[in-house]
């Protein structure tokens, strides 16, 4: 039996375990926060020091942007169609039909466009980056870069983060546009709302600030996804199993981060 120090309260094991769990979770969270901060600082140094290859950035922009376009178009369209159908279903006869235009545009631009695009990129790009860099870690390719006097942050991390920040606003802009067009089509087909009425309703409650809000979200998500995925990839331990575990953790971490950041935007930018 363990001896207790004088004055210590005898705590039941579940409570002790709960505190231990909280302690472990806090330690892991702080480690990740520190690691992300350090990585961001190293990336900034690489950018300022002009050590990032433009060719690598363009290559990453192609992978993240052009190759993601089909899935972003589909997601954006469906977001607009679903919003339009749901909005039409909820509307009562006491409300003018053109309000549906405003509902679709505001929902797509403020919320659905940036968040769904970001979540799609978490799966398509974030998971890919973590798995790719994780595999490079476990096969000693990152060590090889360092042994050859090359900086893995400048070569691998910075191009991905720069590309994410540049590409996501473009993809979100496209998703917003296609979502509105698809929503307009759905409103016409399901609620019989004409294009003129839809656009009238859309303009009624439109603020230019809404587009800026949408694109600002995109920039922040575009920074978060590659930064977290690179950080997690470079922290991979173990073999193939380690890559799998880290990739799953990274996807969860990125998804939660996107949703938490999304919840922080209204009080910061809409009030």
């Amino acid at each position, binding site marked *: 039996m363990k001896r207790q120090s004088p004055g210590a309260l005898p705590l039941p094991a579940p409570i002790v375990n709960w505190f231990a769990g909280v302690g472990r979770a806090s330690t892991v969270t702080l480690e990740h926060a520190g690691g992300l901060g350090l990585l961001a600082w190293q990336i900034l140094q690489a950018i300022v020091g002009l050590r990032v290859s433009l060719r690598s950035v363009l290559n990453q922009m192609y992978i993240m942007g052009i190759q993601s376009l089909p899935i972003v178009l589909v997601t954006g369209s469906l977001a607009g169609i679903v919003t339009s159908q749901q909005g039409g279903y909820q509307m009562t006869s006491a409300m003018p039909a053109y309000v549906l235009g405003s509902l679709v545009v505001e929902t797509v631009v403020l919320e659905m466009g940036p968040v769904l695009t970001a979540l799609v990129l978490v799966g398509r790009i974030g998971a890919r980056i973590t798995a790719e860099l994780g595999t490079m870690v476990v*096969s000693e390719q990152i060590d090889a*870069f360092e*042994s*050859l006097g090359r900086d893995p942050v400048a070569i691998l991390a910075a191009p991905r983060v720069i590309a994410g920040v540049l590409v996501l606003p473009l993809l979100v802009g496209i998703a917003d546009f296609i979502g509105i067009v698809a929503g307009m089509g759905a409103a016409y087909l399901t609620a019989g709302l004409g294009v003129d009425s839809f656009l009238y309703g859309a303009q009624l409650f439109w603020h230019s600030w809404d587009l800026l809000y949408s694109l600002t979200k995109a920039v922040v998500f575009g920074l978060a996804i590659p930064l977290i995925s690179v950080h997690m990839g470079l922290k991979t331990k173990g073999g193939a199993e380690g890559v799998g575990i880290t990739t799953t953790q990274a996807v969860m971490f990125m998804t939660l981060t996107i949703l938490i950041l999304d919840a922080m935007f209204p009080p910061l930018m809409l009030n």
Partner: protein
Amino acid sequence: MIEYRNIHKAYDLPVLTGVSMRVEAGEMFALFGPSGTGKSVLLKTTIGLVIPDIGDVEVDGVSLYRGGKKALETVRNQVGYVFQNAALFDSLNVFDNVCMGIPEAELESLPRNEAAKRAWEALELVNLEPRDILERLPSELSGGMKKRVGIARAIVGRPEVLLWDEPTTGLDPINTAAVERLIKRLSHDLEVTSLLVTHDVEGGLTICDRVAMLDSGTLRFCGTPAEFRASPDPVVQAFVDRAAAEAALDMAAND
């Protein structure tokens, strides 16, 4: 010359505890030891891939952990590292992989045909036919070819020190013998200091001038191959006997 001074390294448990060792200039030196005794960790401290908790490493007079970033850069430029599984970059072809071995500043100022010539020569030195493989990706090479390309990448920068991390692991006996001959020939022809971490005790004893053995993170033995074989230390003897038995089993399995 490489000098390890009182190297301590611990992860969850201690891996290296006060290892001090010296590899003389131009020497071929093998480091043995059971798995998990910190051989590769010690090798990685030589170029800052693993930072020791305590201690310092000096490579040709440059103190790695007291000299700051500049010292690390200098050491990495004069050391070639051959990784256990070659660690070739998946997305680059053989030519680009080998060219990565040329120090960055030198590569930037080098005309492409000069870089190509250096890569070509390095591949020929490791007995590969450059014409056949320069454009190939690592995934299109056999295990033995990957190792050779990894060696070519390590020597193309004209290093003064070569570090070999289990270069024969995963190879069949014929390729193992060929790589061992290659290590000996390159170390001699290029006049470099070679430090070889290996499980292949017999091979290491045959090709190296001196050997050392790590056991549980400490230096158990350091001397010539003849002294190693004749060591009265029971731990060394047991290791030699086990290695001989494993080699005999490997031979039998391959026959």
